[in-house]
């Protein structure tokens, strides 16, 4: 079972008490700058700055951070492969199949495209990872609500967030019970066990939804789930720092041309 490490760190890092708006502002402007830039420089600066802030500033252990970043990086290389490879020869032929009259190679233009997409994606991924590792989901949802996200969507998110952990626990228990009975000994068995697990969780999903609703009704549930969110105070220095850094990054992303 995946044990949502990111969520654990979000509640137990040094920058948890920074106002989510400040972190959100910084991340949003970094994402914008990364997307707008046409050279590899700005996204690389963002990637380095964000990852060092996460590790040195917020105090996320370096090893864990690298492990968390490894998976998206792997996906990224897979996607960039498609950009760099050319089937029409290209500037750097790698293999030639005369029978199919096909040449597989790397094209210079494609490599440039891949390079930009790769760095842009790295910069954006590290920015998002910074937000995810320093800000708990509940505070992100409170931020989204104050930014005007529809109430129904926020409410569905709140219910979902709570249920995820309940289901992960149930799924973990079912999984170890199934494993103890050799439920995953072959691919065929694994499929059967997975289906039984999913079916069981789906059923408990449906009954639980009814129980939750009745429980809430008994406690005066009208139309909206209301929570007290922790009071966070704005820090003027952080706010100025975040907006200045964001502005500089966006302007230089727009200004620097290849």
């Amino acid at each position, binding site marked *: 079972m995946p044990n949502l490490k*990111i969520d654990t760190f979000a509640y137990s890092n040094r920058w948890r008490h920074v106002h989510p708006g400040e972190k959100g502002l910084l991340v949003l402007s970094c*994402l*914008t700058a990364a*997307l*707008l830039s046409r050279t590899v420089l700005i996204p690389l600066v963002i990637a380095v700055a964000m990852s060092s802030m996460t590790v040195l500033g917020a105090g996320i252990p370096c090893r864990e951070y690298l492990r968390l970043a490894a*998976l*998206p990086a792997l*996906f*990224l290389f*897979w*996607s960039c492969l*498609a*950009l760099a*490879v*050319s*089937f*029409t020869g*290209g500037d750097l032929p790698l293999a030639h199949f005369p029978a199919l009259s096909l040449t597989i190679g790397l*094209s210079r233009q*494609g490599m440039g*495209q891949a390079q930009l997409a790769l760095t*842009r*994606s*790295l*910069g*954006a*991924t590290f920015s*998002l*990872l910074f937000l*995810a590792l320093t800000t708990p*989901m509940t505070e992100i949802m409170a931020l989204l609500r104050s930014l005007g996200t529809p109430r*129904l*969507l926020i*409410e*569905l*998110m709140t*219910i*979902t967030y*709570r*249920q*995820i952990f309940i*289901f992960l626990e149930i799924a973990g228990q079912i999984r170890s019970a199934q494993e103890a009975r050799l439920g995953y000994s072959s691919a065929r068995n694994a*499929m*059967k066990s*997975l*289906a039984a697990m*999913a*079916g069981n*969780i*789906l*059923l408990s*999903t*449906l*009954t*639980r*939804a*009814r129980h*939750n*609703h009745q429980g*809430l009704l008994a406690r005066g549930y009208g139309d909206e789930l209301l929570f007290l969110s922790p009071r966070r105070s704005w820090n003027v220095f952080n706010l100025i720092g975040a907006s200045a850094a964001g502005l500089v990054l966006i302007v230089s992303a727009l200004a620097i041309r290849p």
Partner: protein
Amino acid sequence: MHIMEGFLPAGHAAAWGAASTVCVAAGLRSIAKAVKANPELKMLLGVSTAFTFVLSALKLPSVTGSCSHPTGTGLGAILFGPLAMAPVSLIVLLFQAILLAHGGVTTLGANVFSMGVVGPLAGYGIYRLTKAVGLPSNLTIFLAASLADLATYVTTATQLAIAFPDPTGGFAVSLAKFLGIFAVTQIPLAISEGLLTVLIYSFIQKYSSQELSTLGFALTGEEERI
């Protein structure tokens, strides 16, 4: 399959975001209407969204040996109808981006469009069509779930090909490249998800169609959808 955070250029990210916003808004509106008639539905949808998230976090043994993750779009579209799936997959994708570092916020629009709009529509359409033709129900479910996956994968490849046309061959060559490279993981995934969905569906039907019908789901007859 999700497009990575930051992979799409700004213009494309914004355009797909706008397209998805329209679909999510339509979905939310229909959910709000259904919730007014049946208040319990909100809880049901929220809990089901969590179920989809957990399902997508499970590893699936795949035909070629590589591991993949089920998406649950086919099953969701069959149970809830295609319209409700846009907001649901928006939430699932956002949680995946933040809690699992899978996908991203800037590509959320593109991903919602492929996984929450095209996939469920294709799955639901196939489900209705094959049911009308009178195919056996297992085959119906299998086709709906696996074709929903395939539609999602083709949409994603198209989105990438529009954003990154091949320098020499243009859009078509680029589309062929993306389709080819992701076929390695996506075609086995579609087959295993189809099989898994059939197994889940028959499991539910066998052990608890009674319970389901008291909850308002009649799997065998005509269902009430959003």
